[in-house]
Protein backbone atom coordinates (compact mmCIF):
# COMPACT_ATOMS: atom_id res chain seq x y z
CA UNK A 1 0.00 0.00 0.00
CA UNK A 2 1.34 3.38 -0.95
CA UNK A 3 1.58 5.56 2.14
CA UNK A 4 -0.19 8.86 1.77
CA UNK A 5 -0.95 11.76 4.05
CA UNK A 6 -4.57 12.84 4.63
CA UNK A 7 -3.85 15.98 2.64
CA UNK A 8 -2.60 13.89 -0.28
CA UNK A 9 -5.67 11.67 -0.09
CA UNK A 10 -7.80 14.69 -0.74
CA UNK A 11 -5.62 16.78 -3.02
CA UNK A 12 -4.14 14.30 -5.49
CA UNK A 13 -7.52 13.27 -6.91
CA UNK A 14 -8.42 16.86 -7.62
CA UNK A 15 -5.64 17.54 -10.08
CA UNK A 16 -2.60 15.24 -10.21
CA UNK A 17 -4.65 12.05 -10.37
CA UNK A 18 -7.86 13.59 -11.61
CA UNK A 19 -10.23 10.71 -12.46
CA UNK A 20 -11.12 12.03 -15.91
CA UNK A 21 -8.09 14.07 -16.95
CA UNK A 22 -5.38 11.75 -15.68
CA UNK A 23 -6.93 8.31 -15.08
CA UNK A 24 -9.40 8.53 -17.98
CA UNK A 25 -12.14 7.06 -15.81
CA UNK A 26 -15.80 7.98 -15.91
CA UNK A 27 -15.56 9.05 -19.52
CA UNK A 28 -19.10 7.93 -20.38
CA UNK A 29 -20.84 10.63 -18.32
CA UNK A 30 -18.01 13.07 -19.05
CA UNK A 31 -18.78 12.79 -22.76
CA UNK A 32 -22.53 12.27 -22.63
CA UNK A 33 -24.00 14.83 -20.29
CA UNK A 34 -21.60 17.75 -20.47
CA UNK A 35 -23.37 19.71 -23.21
CA UNK A 36 -24.43 22.32 -20.67
CA UNK A 37 -22.93 23.51 -17.39
CA UNK A 38 -26.18 22.76 -15.54
CA UNK A 39 -26.17 19.13 -16.68
CA UNK A 40 -22.48 18.76 -15.83
CA UNK A 41 -23.12 20.22 -12.40
CA UNK A 42 -26.07 17.91 -11.69
CA UNK A 43 -24.11 14.87 -12.82
CA UNK A 44 -21.13 16.00 -10.76
CA UNK A 45 -23.23 16.42 -7.63
CA UNK A 46 -25.01 13.08 -8.11
CA UNK A 47 -21.70 11.28 -8.61
CA UNK A 48 -20.17 13.07 -5.62
CA UNK A 49 -23.07 11.93 -3.45
CA UNK A 50 -22.86 8.32 -4.63
CA UNK A 51 -19.07 8.23 -4.28
CA UNK A 52 -19.04 9.71 -0.80
CA UNK A 53 -21.87 7.53 0.46
CA UNK A 54 -20.36 4.36 -0.99
CA UNK A 55 -16.84 5.08 0.26
CA UNK A 56 -18.19 5.76 3.73
CA UNK A 57 -20.21 2.54 3.89
CA UNK A 58 -17.55 0.37 2.26
CA UNK A 59 -14.88 1.64 4.63
CA UNK A 60 -17.21 1.25 7.61
CA UNK A 61 -18.24 -2.28 6.69
CA UNK A 62 -14.91 -3.52 5.34
CA UNK A 63 -14.47 -6.02 8.18
CA UNK A 64 -17.98 -7.40 7.73
CA UNK A 65 -17.86 -7.97 3.98
CA UNK A 66 -16.16 -11.27 3.09
CA UNK A 67 -13.61 -10.92 0.30
CA UNK A 68 -15.42 -13.40 -1.94
CA UNK A 69 -18.51 -11.25 -2.27
CA UNK A 70 -16.94 -7.84 -1.90
CA UNK A 71 -17.52 -6.72 -5.51
CA UNK A 72 -21.19 -7.73 -5.33
CA UNK A 73 -21.51 -5.95 -2.02
CA UNK A 74 -19.83 -2.77 -3.36
CA UNK A 75 -22.07 -2.75 -6.42
CA UNK A 76 -25.11 -3.26 -4.21
CA UNK A 77 -24.08 -0.31 -2.05
CA UNK A 78 -23.33 1.87 -5.07
CA UNK A 79 -26.58 0.90 -6.81
CA UNK A 80 -28.58 1.77 -3.72
CA UNK A 81 -27.08 5.24 -3.54
CA UNK A 82 -27.62 5.72 -7.28
CA UNK A 83 -31.29 4.76 -6.99
CA UNK A 84 -31.70 7.18 -4.11
CA UNK A 85 -29.98 9.93 -6.13
CA UNK A 86 -32.25 9.10 -9.08
CA UNK A 87 -35.45 9.51 -7.04
CA UNK A 88 -34.23 12.64 -5.28
CA UNK A 89 -33.26 14.33 -8.55
CA UNK A 90 -36.61 13.35 -10.11
CA UNK A 91 -38.46 14.86 -7.16
CA UNK A 92 -36.36 17.98 -6.67
CA UNK A 93 -35.10 18.99 -10.12
CA UNK A 94 -37.38 17.13 -12.59
CA UNK A 95 -36.22 19.06 -15.65
CA UNK A 96 -32.55 18.27 -15.15
CA UNK A 97 -33.47 14.69 -14.29
CA UNK A 98 -35.22 14.43 -17.65
CA UNK A 99 -32.18 15.83 -19.46
CA UNK A 100 -29.76 13.41 -17.83
CA UNK A 101 -32.08 10.49 -18.56
CA UNK A 102 -30.45 7.09 -18.33
CA UNK A 103 -27.08 8.51 -17.35
CA UNK A 104 -28.13 8.85 -13.73
CA UNK A 105 -28.80 5.11 -13.52
CA UNK A 106 -25.51 4.49 -15.34
CA UNK A 107 -23.54 5.99 -12.45
CA UNK A 108 -23.71 2.43 -11.06
CA UNK A 109 -21.26 1.26 -13.71
CA UNK A 110 -18.96 4.27 -13.46
CA UNK A 111 -15.67 2.44 -12.91
CA UNK A 112 -14.26 5.47 -11.12
CA UNK A 113 -16.57 4.75 -8.17
CA UNK A 114 -16.00 1.02 -7.98
CA UNK A 115 -12.29 1.71 -8.45
CA UNK A 116 -12.12 3.94 -5.39
CA UNK A 117 -13.94 1.31 -3.29
CA UNK A 118 -11.68 -1.54 -4.36
CA UNK A 119 -8.40 0.39 -4.38
CA UNK A 120 -8.88 2.68 -1.43
CA UNK A 121 -12.01 2.71 0.72
CA UNK A 122 -11.96 -1.02 1.42
CA UNK A 123 -8.44 -0.78 2.90
CA UNK A 124 -8.49 2.50 4.82
CA UNK A 125 -10.14 4.02 7.86
CA UNK A 126 -13.41 5.84 7.35
CA UNK A 127 -11.93 9.33 7.61
CA UNK A 128 -9.33 8.67 4.93
CA UNK A 129 -11.89 7.01 2.68
CA UNK A 130 -14.14 10.05 2.96
CA UNK A 131 -11.27 12.44 2.19
CA UNK A 132 -10.40 10.39 -0.86
CA UNK A 133 -14.04 10.34 -1.99
CA UNK A 134 -14.37 14.11 -1.51
CA UNK A 135 -11.23 14.66 -3.56
CA UNK A 136 -12.29 12.29 -6.32
CA UNK A 137 -15.78 13.77 -6.42
CA UNK A 138 -14.46 17.30 -6.63
CA UNK A 139 -11.91 16.29 -9.26
CA UNK A 140 -14.64 14.64 -11.34
CA UNK A 141 -16.82 17.71 -10.98
CA UNK A 142 -13.98 20.00 -12.06
CA UNK A 143 -13.43 17.91 -15.18
CA UNK A 144 -17.16 17.85 -16.00
CA UNK A 145 -17.46 21.60 -15.48
CA UNK A 146 -14.47 22.22 -17.75
CA UNK A 147 -16.14 20.14 -20.45
CA UNK A 148 -19.57 21.64 -19.84
CA UNK A 149 -18.23 25.18 -19.76
CA UNK A 150 -16.36 24.89 -23.05
CA UNK A 151 -19.19 23.06 -24.79
CA UNK A 152 -21.99 25.34 -23.65
CA UNK A 153 -19.96 28.47 -24.33
CA UNK A 154 -19.04 27.49 -27.86
CA UNK A 155 -22.11 25.42 -28.70
CA UNK A 156 -24.78 27.70 -27.32
CA UNK A 157 -23.00 30.98 -26.60
CA UNK A 158 -24.07 30.85 -22.98
CA UNK A 159 -22.93 29.79 -19.52
CA UNK A 160 -25.47 28.27 -17.10
CA UNK A 161 -28.15 29.49 -19.49
CA UNK A 162 -27.03 33.14 -19.51
CA UNK A 163 -26.00 34.41 -22.92
CA UNK A 164 -22.45 35.70 -22.70
CA UNK A 165 -21.19 35.69 -26.28
CA UNK A 166 -23.30 38.53 -27.62
CA UNK A 167 -25.92 38.47 -30.37
CA UNK A 168 -23.46 38.30 -33.27
CA UNK A 169 -22.06 34.95 -32.08
CA UNK A 170 -22.97 32.00 -34.27
CA UNK A 171 -23.15 28.89 -32.02
CA UNK A 172 -20.96 25.92 -32.97
CA UNK A 173 -23.78 23.39 -32.92
CA UNK A 174 -21.31 20.51 -33.16
CA UNK A 175 -20.03 21.30 -29.67
CA UNK A 176 -23.29 20.29 -27.99
CA UNK A 177 -23.62 17.20 -30.19
CA UNK A 178 -21.73 14.01 -29.30
CA UNK A 179 -18.69 14.82 -31.52
CA UNK A 180 -18.24 18.02 -29.53
CA UNK A 181 -17.74 15.93 -26.41
CA UNK A 182 -14.91 13.99 -28.00
CA UNK A 183 -13.31 17.12 -29.47
CA UNK A 184 -13.46 18.97 -26.16
CA UNK A 185 -12.13 16.03 -24.17
CA UNK A 186 -9.29 15.56 -26.65
CA UNK A 187 -8.23 19.20 -26.48
CA UNK A 188 -8.50 19.28 -22.69
CA UNK A 189 -6.40 16.10 -22.38
CA UNK A 190 -3.73 17.56 -24.66
CA UNK A 191 -3.55 20.73 -22.58
CA UNK A 192 -3.54 18.71 -19.34
CA UNK A 193 -0.78 16.42 -20.65
CA UNK A 194 1.30 19.39 -21.75
CA UNK A 195 0.88 21.04 -18.36
CA UNK A 196 1.81 17.83 -16.59
CA UNK A 197 4.85 17.38 -18.81
CA UNK A 198 6.12 20.83 -17.91
CA UNK A 199 5.64 20.33 -14.17
CA UNK A 200 7.15 16.87 -14.01
CA UNK A 201 10.07 16.37 -11.59
CA UNK A 202 13.31 16.73 -13.54
CA UNK A 203 14.96 13.37 -12.96
CA UNK A 204 16.96 11.56 -15.59
CA UNK A 205 15.08 8.61 -17.01
CA UNK A 206 17.63 7.72 -19.71
CA UNK A 207 20.12 6.02 -17.41
CA UNK A 208 17.40 3.90 -15.85
CA UNK A 209 16.18 2.72 -19.21
CA UNK A 210 19.63 1.74 -20.43
CA UNK A 211 20.09 -0.39 -17.35
CA UNK A 212 16.83 -2.13 -18.01
CA UNK A 213 15.17 -1.04 -14.81
CA UNK A 214 11.45 -0.61 -14.96
CA UNK A 215 11.02 3.02 -13.93
CA UNK A 216 7.75 2.02 -12.30
CA UNK A 217 9.75 0.31 -9.57
CA UNK A 218 11.65 3.48 -8.78
CA UNK A 219 9.05 4.72 -6.38
CA UNK A 220 9.34 1.72 -4.16
CA UNK A 221 7.25 -1.41 -3.73
CA UNK A 222 3.56 -0.96 -3.77
CA UNK A 223 3.75 2.14 -5.90
CA UNK A 224 1.30 0.55 -8.31
CA UNK A 225 -1.17 -0.61 -5.81
CA UNK A 226 -3.30 2.45 -5.41
CA UNK A 227 -4.50 4.93 -7.91
CA UNK A 228 -4.98 4.39 -11.57
CA UNK A 229 -2.64 1.47 -12.13
CA UNK A 230 -4.53 -0.67 -9.65
CA UNK A 231 -7.55 -0.69 -11.90
CA UNK A 232 -5.62 -1.04 -15.07
CA UNK A 233 -6.35 2.38 -16.47
CA UNK A 234 -4.00 4.00 -18.93
CA UNK A 235 -2.30 7.08 -17.59
CA UNK A 236 -1.46 5.42 -14.33
CA UNK A 237 2.12 4.79 -15.28
CA UNK A 238 2.51 8.39 -16.28
CA UNK A 239 1.64 9.45 -12.78
CA UNK A 240 4.50 7.50 -11.28
CA UNK A 241 6.99 9.50 -13.25
CA UNK A 242 7.50 7.09 -16.14
CA UNK A 243 6.45 7.42 -19.73
Amino acid sequence: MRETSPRQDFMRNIWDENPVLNQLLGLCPALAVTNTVANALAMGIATFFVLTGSSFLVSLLKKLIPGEVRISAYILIIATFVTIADFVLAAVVPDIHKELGAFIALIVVNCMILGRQEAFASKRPVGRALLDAFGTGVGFMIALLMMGGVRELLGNGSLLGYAVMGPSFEPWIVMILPPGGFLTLGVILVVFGWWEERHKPRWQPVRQWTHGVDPGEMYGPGGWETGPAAIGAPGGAKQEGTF
Partner: protein
Amino acid sequence: MSDDRKLPVVGPDIPVEGAPTEGGTPPGSAFPVEIEVPSWRLVTTLALAGALAGLAIVLVFSWAQPRIDAHRARVLQEAVQEVLKGPERYEPLFVYDGQVTDILPAGVDSTNADRVFLGFDEGGGTVGFAVQGEASGYQDVIRLIFGYDHMEGRVLAMKVLESKETPGLGDKIIKDMGFVGQFEGVLAPILGIKTGDSTGDEKEVEMITGATISSRTVIGIINDQLARIGPALDSYRVGGGQ
Protein backbone atom coordinates in the same frame (compact mmCIF):
# COMPACT_ATOMS: atom_id res chain seq x y z
CA MET B 1 4.74 -10.52 -7.37
CA SER B 2 3.36 -13.87 -8.38
CA ASP B 3 0.34 -15.37 -6.73
CA ASP B 4 1.57 -18.89 -7.44
CA ARG B 5 3.83 -18.81 -4.47
CA LYS B 6 0.94 -18.55 -2.07
CA LEU B 7 -0.83 -21.64 -3.33
CA PRO B 8 -0.16 -24.83 -1.39
CA VAL B 9 1.11 -27.68 -3.51
CA VAL B 10 -1.76 -30.09 -3.74
CA GLY B 11 -1.62 -32.77 -6.35
CA PRO B 12 -4.61 -34.63 -7.68
CA ASP B 13 -3.56 -37.80 -5.89
CA ILE B 14 -3.08 -36.37 -2.46
CA PRO B 15 -6.31 -36.62 -0.48
CA VAL B 16 -7.21 -33.45 1.33
CA GLU B 17 -8.94 -33.81 4.58
CA GLY B 18 -12.44 -32.44 4.63
CA ALA B 19 -12.44 -31.52 0.94
CA PRO B 20 -15.67 -32.40 -0.82
CA THR B 21 -15.52 -35.04 -3.52
CA GLU B 22 -18.16 -34.56 -6.14
CA GLY B 23 -18.63 -35.94 -9.60
CA GLY B 24 -15.31 -37.73 -9.55
CA THR B 25 -13.30 -34.54 -9.36
CA PRO B 26 -10.12 -35.28 -7.51
CA PRO B 27 -10.10 -33.46 -4.21
CA GLY B 28 -7.96 -30.40 -4.09
CA SER B 29 -7.74 -29.94 -7.84
CA ALA B 30 -9.92 -26.87 -7.62
CA PHE B 31 -8.23 -23.61 -6.69
CA PRO B 32 -7.62 -23.71 -2.96
CA VAL B 33 -8.71 -20.68 -1.03
CA GLU B 34 -6.51 -19.50 1.77
CA ILE B 35 -9.21 -18.75 4.32
CA GLU B 36 -12.39 -20.67 3.85
CA VAL B 37 -15.40 -18.47 4.51
CA PRO B 38 -18.50 -20.62 4.95
CA SER B 39 -20.93 -20.06 2.14
CA TRP B 40 -23.80 -19.38 4.51
CA ARG B 41 -21.92 -16.29 5.60
CA LEU B 42 -21.58 -15.07 2.03
CA VAL B 43 -25.26 -15.65 1.35
CA THR B 44 -26.31 -14.03 4.62
CA THR B 45 -24.12 -11.00 4.02
CA LEU B 46 -25.56 -10.37 0.58
CA ALA B 47 -29.14 -11.14 1.66
CA LEU B 48 -28.86 -8.76 4.57
CA ALA B 49 -27.25 -6.06 2.45
CA GLY B 50 -29.95 -6.54 -0.19
CA ALA B 51 -32.72 -6.27 2.37
CA LEU B 52 -31.25 -3.09 3.85
CA ALA B 53 -30.76 -1.61 0.39
CA GLY B 54 -34.36 -2.45 -0.46
CA LEU B 55 -35.58 -0.81 2.71
CA ALA B 56 -33.59 2.36 2.00
CA ILE B 57 -34.94 2.52 -1.55
CA VAL B 58 -38.54 2.00 -0.44
CA LEU B 59 -38.21 4.81 2.11
CA VAL B 60 -36.81 7.23 -0.44
CA PHE B 61 -39.36 6.12 -3.05
CA SER B 62 -42.30 6.74 -0.76
CA TRP B 63 -40.95 10.23 -0.14
CA ALA B 64 -40.23 11.00 -3.79
CA GLN B 65 -43.20 9.44 -5.59
CA PRO B 66 -45.89 11.95 -4.50
CA ARG B 67 -43.57 14.78 -5.53
CA ILE B 68 -42.87 13.22 -8.92
CA ASP B 69 -46.60 12.67 -9.54
CA ALA B 70 -47.43 16.18 -8.41
CA HIS B 71 -44.84 17.59 -10.77
CA ARG B 72 -46.20 15.56 -13.68
CA ALA B 73 -49.74 16.76 -12.98
CA ARG B 74 -48.52 20.36 -12.67
CA VAL B 75 -46.68 20.16 -15.99
CA LEU B 76 -49.81 18.87 -17.74
CA GLN B 77 -51.97 21.50 -16.08
CA GLU B 78 -49.61 24.29 -17.11
CA ALA B 79 -49.45 22.93 -20.63
CA VAL B 80 -53.27 22.83 -20.91
CA GLN B 81 -53.44 26.40 -19.61
CA GLU B 82 -50.83 27.48 -22.10
CA VAL B 83 -52.27 25.89 -25.25
CA LEU B 84 -55.82 27.01 -24.43
CA LYS B 85 -54.56 30.56 -23.87
CA GLY B 86 -55.38 30.74 -20.18
CA PRO B 87 -58.99 29.59 -19.98
CA GLU B 88 -61.13 30.39 -16.95
CA ARG B 89 -61.43 26.68 -16.26
CA TYR B 90 -61.18 23.42 -18.14
CA GLU B 91 -62.54 19.94 -17.73
CA PRO B 92 -61.23 16.58 -18.86
CA LEU B 93 -63.32 14.66 -21.40
CA PHE B 94 -62.87 11.54 -23.48
CA VAL B 95 -63.19 10.91 -27.17
CA TYR B 96 -64.40 7.39 -27.75
CA ASP B 97 -65.96 5.86 -30.83
CA GLY B 98 -66.26 9.22 -32.59
CA GLN B 99 -68.06 10.83 -29.66
CA VAL B 100 -66.96 13.34 -27.08
CA THR B 101 -68.13 12.12 -23.71
CA ASP B 102 -67.44 12.89 -20.10
CA ILE B 103 -68.11 9.34 -18.93
CA LEU B 104 -66.84 6.31 -20.77
CA PRO B 105 -69.27 3.42 -21.39
CA ALA B 106 -68.96 0.68 -18.80
CA GLY B 107 -66.19 -1.79 -19.52
CA VAL B 108 -64.13 0.58 -21.68
CA ASP B 109 -60.67 1.16 -20.37
CA SER B 110 -59.59 4.80 -20.29
CA THR B 111 -56.36 3.89 -22.10
CA ASN B 112 -58.42 3.01 -25.21
CA ALA B 113 -59.97 6.46 -25.39
CA ASP B 114 -58.39 9.85 -26.09
CA ARG B 115 -58.27 12.16 -23.13
CA VAL B 116 -58.94 15.77 -24.12
CA PHE B 117 -59.45 18.94 -22.10
CA LEU B 118 -62.24 21.38 -22.93
CA GLY B 119 -61.55 24.97 -21.89
CA PHE B 120 -64.16 27.59 -21.00
CA ASP B 121 -63.87 31.37 -20.91
CA GLU B 122 -65.37 33.71 -18.29
CA GLY B 123 -68.78 33.75 -19.94
CA GLY B 124 -69.02 29.96 -19.93
CA GLY B 125 -68.39 29.69 -23.67
CA THR B 126 -65.97 27.11 -24.98
CA VAL B 127 -62.43 28.12 -25.91
CA GLY B 128 -61.37 24.88 -27.51
CA PHE B 129 -59.91 21.47 -26.81
CA ALA B 130 -56.44 20.61 -25.61
CA VAL B 131 -55.36 17.42 -27.36
CA GLN B 132 -52.25 15.33 -26.73
CA GLY B 133 -50.43 13.34 -29.37
CA GLU B 134 -47.14 11.62 -30.04
CA ALA B 135 -45.09 10.18 -32.89
CA SER B 136 -41.51 9.22 -33.66
CA GLY B 137 -39.32 12.19 -34.46
CA TYR B 138 -35.69 12.21 -35.51
CA GLN B 139 -34.21 10.76 -32.32
CA ASP B 140 -37.06 9.49 -30.22
CA VAL B 141 -40.76 9.94 -29.60
CA ILE B 142 -42.00 13.51 -29.63
CA ARG B 143 -44.96 14.09 -27.33
CA LEU B 144 -46.91 17.32 -27.53
CA ILE B 145 -50.15 18.99 -26.61
CA PHE B 146 -52.03 21.52 -28.71
CA GLY B 147 -55.08 23.69 -28.33
CA TYR B 148 -57.76 23.36 -31.00
CA ASP B 149 -60.61 25.80 -31.50
CA HIS B 150 -63.28 23.43 -32.80
CA MET B 151 -65.65 26.26 -33.73
CA GLU B 152 -63.16 27.91 -36.06
CA GLY B 153 -61.10 24.89 -37.02
CA ARG B 154 -57.91 26.61 -35.94
CA VAL B 155 -55.00 25.53 -33.80
CA LEU B 156 -54.64 27.79 -30.76
CA ALA B 157 -51.10 26.92 -29.72
CA MET B 158 -48.69 24.00 -29.55
CA LYS B 159 -46.38 22.91 -26.79
CA VAL B 160 -43.88 20.06 -26.90
CA LEU B 161 -44.03 18.00 -23.70
CA GLU B 162 -41.30 15.49 -24.40
CA SER B 163 -38.56 15.36 -26.99
CA LYS B 164 -34.99 14.16 -27.28
CA GLU B 165 -34.37 15.92 -30.58
CA THR B 166 -30.87 17.07 -31.50
CA PRO B 167 -29.74 19.98 -29.33
CA GLY B 168 -29.42 23.15 -31.37
CA LEU B 169 -31.34 21.77 -34.36
CA GLY B 170 -34.35 19.60 -33.64
CA ASP B 171 -34.91 21.00 -30.19
CA LYS B 172 -35.95 24.28 -31.79
CA ILE B 173 -39.42 22.72 -31.98
CA ILE B 174 -39.55 23.35 -28.21
CA LYS B 175 -38.17 26.82 -27.71
CA ASP B 176 -37.80 28.59 -31.06
CA MET B 177 -40.73 31.03 -31.02
CA GLY B 178 -40.26 31.61 -34.73
CA PHE B 179 -41.53 28.07 -35.21
CA VAL B 180 -43.74 27.52 -32.18
CA GLY B 181 -45.44 30.91 -32.58
CA GLN B 182 -46.64 30.02 -36.06
CA PHE B 183 -49.08 27.49 -34.62
CA GLU B 184 -51.12 30.22 -32.99
CA GLY B 185 -54.20 30.60 -35.13
CA VAL B 186 -53.09 28.42 -38.02
CA LEU B 187 -55.92 26.73 -39.93
CA ALA B 188 -56.04 22.94 -39.74
CA PRO B 189 -54.96 20.78 -41.50
CA ILE B 190 -51.53 22.41 -41.41
CA LEU B 191 -49.25 22.58 -44.41
CA GLY B 192 -45.53 22.38 -43.67
CA ILE B 193 -43.54 24.55 -46.09
CA LYS B 194 -39.87 25.37 -46.56
CA THR B 195 -38.50 28.65 -45.26
CA GLY B 196 -39.23 31.44 -47.70
CA ASP B 197 -41.89 29.56 -49.67
CA SER B 198 -44.72 31.29 -47.85
CA THR B 199 -47.72 32.28 -49.99
CA GLY B 200 -49.71 33.85 -47.19
CA ASP B 201 -52.05 30.86 -46.86
CA GLU B 202 -53.45 30.60 -43.36
CA LYS B 203 -52.65 26.89 -43.28
CA GLU B 204 -48.94 27.34 -43.69
CA VAL B 205 -46.23 26.75 -41.10
CA GLU B 206 -42.60 27.31 -42.08
CA MET B 207 -40.47 24.36 -41.10
CA ILE B 208 -37.11 24.78 -39.34
CA THR B 209 -34.08 24.71 -41.61
CA GLY B 210 -31.92 21.77 -40.59
CA ALA B 211 -34.72 20.16 -38.60
CA THR B 212 -37.15 19.14 -41.31
CA ILE B 213 -37.94 15.76 -39.79
CA SER B 214 -38.66 17.17 -36.34
CA SER B 215 -40.80 19.96 -37.80
CA ARG B 216 -42.67 17.57 -40.05
CA THR B 217 -43.32 15.23 -37.11
CA VAL B 218 -44.81 18.05 -35.04
CA ILE B 219 -47.12 19.07 -37.89
CA GLY B 220 -47.90 15.43 -38.59
CA ILE B 221 -48.92 14.72 -34.99
CA ILE B 222 -51.40 17.60 -35.02
CA ASN B 223 -52.84 16.72 -38.44
CA ASP B 224 -53.14 13.02 -37.59
CA GLN B 225 -54.89 13.68 -34.29
CA LEU B 226 -57.30 16.10 -35.95
CA ALA B 227 -57.98 13.70 -38.80
CA ARG B 228 -58.77 11.00 -36.26
CA ILE B 229 -60.78 12.80 -33.61
CA GLY B 230 -61.28 16.21 -35.26
CA PRO B 231 -64.81 15.43 -36.59
CA ALA B 232 -65.92 14.40 -33.10
CA LEU B 233 -64.50 17.62 -31.64
CA ASP B 234 -65.92 19.80 -34.43
CA SER B 235 -69.47 18.59 -33.89
CA TYR B 236 -69.34 18.90 -30.11
CA ARG B 237 -71.58 21.58 -28.60
CA VAL B 238 -71.90 22.17 -24.88
CA GLY B 239 -75.28 21.17 -23.53
CA GLY B 240 -76.62 20.15 -26.90
CA GLY B 241 -74.34 17.15 -27.12
CA GLN B 242 -73.45 16.21 -30.68
